[in-house]
C-alpha cells in the first residue's frame, strides 16, 4: 500500500468531519422549518404550519423565480448555443479572447456588474422596474456555463465532418445548425440548462441590487425572511428552496453518472458560481 493506515485514518476522520460541517446545518434548518417551536425543540412536535405560512407570505417570489429562471434559460440557449458552436469551429486567439471575456461577469463580483447595469440601464423606463432587468443580470452571469457545457459536447461529437458532408449536400447554415449541431450537442445543452436554472434560482448578489419591491425573487425573499421573520418561517422558506434545487441537482448527477462522455461534469466545480 502506498498509503499508511494512519494516513487513511486521518483522511477518513477529516472527511467525515467536513461532511458533518456541510450537512449538519442543513439538517438543523430542515428540522427548524418543521418543528412547532424550535426554541423548545423537537419535543414540541412536528408541523407543516410554517411551510403553509411561507406559501401565504412568499408564494409570489417562488413563482417569480421560476419565471426569471425560465426566461434566463431561454435567452442563454438562444444566444449561448450558437456562440458555443462558433467557438468550437474557431480555435484561434480571437475566439479564446472572446471566451475569456464572456466569463468575466462570473469572475468579477456580482455587486460590480449590478452597479454597472444600474448606472447604464437603470434610467431606461420600463426596464428598471420589470423582471427583465433581473433576467439580464442572470443571463450575463450564467451564459458562460451554457457556452462551456454546449461547447464541450460539440467538441466531443466531432461535428466538423458531419457539418461538411451536409454542406456538400446543399444544406444551409441554419438547417445544419438546427439539424446537426443542436441534436448532437444535446447532452451538453441539457447539462448547461440545468446549471443555468440552478444558478438563476439561487442568484442573490446581482438580484439584491436589481430588484424592486415589486420584483422580489426567492433569494431576495429569503434575505427578507432571515432579517425579519421568525426562525421557523425562515427555515421553512429555506426548505422550500432546497426542495426546488434537489430535482435540478439530481438531474445533473444523473447526467454525469449515466457515463455519457459527451456530457461535462455536473455543476462545473472549476467555475465559480458566486456567493
Amino acid at each position, binding site marked *: 500500500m*502506498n498509503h499508511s493506515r494512519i494516513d487513511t485514518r486521518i483522511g477518513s476522520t*477529516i*472527511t467525515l468531519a467536513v461532511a458533518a460541517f456541510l450537512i449538519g446545518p442543513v439538517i438543523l434548518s430542515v428540522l427548524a422549518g418543521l418543528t412547532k417551536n424550535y426554541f423548545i425543540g423537537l419535543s414540541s412536535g412536528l408541523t407543516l404550519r410554517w411551510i403553509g405560512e411561507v406559501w401565504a407570505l412568499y408564494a409570489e417570489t417562488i413563482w417569480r423565480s421560476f419565471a426569471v429562471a425560465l426566461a434566463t434559460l431561454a*435567452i442563454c440557449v438562444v444566444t449561448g448555443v450558437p456562440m458555443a458552436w*462558433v467557438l468550437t469551429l*474557431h480555435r484561434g486567439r480571437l475566439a479564446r479572447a472572446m471566451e475569456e471575456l464572456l466569463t468575466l461577469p462570473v469572475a468579477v*463580483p456580482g455587486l460590480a456588474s449590478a452597479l454597472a447595469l444600474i*448606472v447604464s440601464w437603470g434610467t431606461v423606463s420600463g426596464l428598471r422596474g420589470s423582471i427583465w432587468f433581473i433576467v439580464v443580470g442572470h443571463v450575463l452571469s450564467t451564459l458562460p456555463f451554457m457556452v462551456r457545457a454546449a461547447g464541450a459536447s460539440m467538441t466531443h461529437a466531432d461535428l466538423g465532418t458531419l457539418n461538411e458532408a451536409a454542406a456538400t449536400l446543399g444544406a444551409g447554415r441554419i438547417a445544419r445548425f438546427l439539424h446537426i449541431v443542436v441534436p448532437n450537442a444535446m447532452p451538453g445543452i441539457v447539462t448547461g440548462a440545468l446549471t443555468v436554472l440552478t444558478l438563476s434560482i439561487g442568484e442573490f448578489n446581482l438580484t439584491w441590487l436589481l430588484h424592486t419591491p415589486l420584483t422580489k425573487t426567492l433569494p431576495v425573499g429569503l434575505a427578507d425572511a432571515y432579517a425579519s421573520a421568525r426562525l421557523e418561517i425562515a427555515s421553512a422558506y429555506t426548505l422550500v428552496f432546497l426542495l426546488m434545487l434537489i430535482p435540478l441537482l439530481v438531474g445533473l448527477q444523473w447526467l454525469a453518472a449515466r457515463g455519457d462522455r459527451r456530457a461535462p461534469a455536473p455543476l462545473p466545480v472549476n467555475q465559480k458560481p458566486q*456567493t
Partner: protein
Amino acid sequence: MARRGWLWFAAPAAVLFIAFWLLPMVGLAIIGAESRNGQSAYLTVLGSEQYWMSLFNTVVLSLAATLATLLLALPVGRFLAWHPQFPGRRVLMSMLTFPLAFPGVVVGFLVILLSGRQGLIANLTQWLPDGPLVFAYGMGGLFLGYLYFSLPRCIGVISAAAEHIDPALLEAARTLGAGAWRRFIDVELPALTPALIGAGAMSFATSMGAFGTAFTLATQIDVLPITIYNEFTNYANIPVAAALSIVLGLVTWAVLYVAHSLAGGGGGAGA
C-alpha cells in the same frame, strides 16, 4: 473560408455581452473617475484610511479562509481519490457537493443556525462561565461562511487532481526507501500544486466578492462588498461605490489570472 460564414452566429451573445456588461462596466469605471469635492473617487478611495482598512480586512479574512479550506480539502481530496469504492461513498459525495448550489444568503443563515444566538454551538456551550459561545455576527461567522462555500469547490478540484497521480510514482518512491511523509512531500505535493493554486485562487476570489453571506450575518461587518453596498444605498455615493467596485473587480480578476498562469491552465482562472 466556409467557417467565416458562421461568425454571425456569435452575434447575439456578443451584442448582449457588450451592451449589458462591457459598456456598462466602462461606464462604471468612468463614473469612478468623476470628481466630487474636486477630486476623482479613485483618489478619494486610495487616500482614505477607512477604505484601505476595509480592503485589508477583506484580504486577510479571505486569505485565512482560503488557507483553512486548502488544509481541510487536501486530506479529504486525497482520501476520496485513494478510495474510489466503499459503502456509502455516493451519499458522502452528495453531502460534500450539495452545498455547491447554495447562494451566499443561505450559507449565512446556516452559519447563524450553527453559531448564532439560538445556534447549535450556543446551545452546547451554555455551561461556560462567560455565557454561551456566539460568533455568527462578525468576522468569526464570516470566516465560517467562507469555509462553508469554499470547501465543496476545493474538494472537487483537489480530488480530481489526486486521482491523476500515477501510483507507479509512489510505488517507485517507496521502493527507493521513501517513507510516507517523504512520499507526500516529494511526490504528491508537487503533483497537486497546480490544483491547490487553482482551488486556492477560486476560493480567495469567491471570498473577496462574497456579498450574500456577509449581508445575512450583519450589515455592519467592515468588508469591501458591504462597504460598496453601504456607499451605494445608504450614502448614495455612486462615484465611490463605482471606484470601489472597479478596485474589487480588478483585484479579484488579477488573482484568478495570476493563478491561472501559475497553474498552467489547470485551475479556476477565467471562471
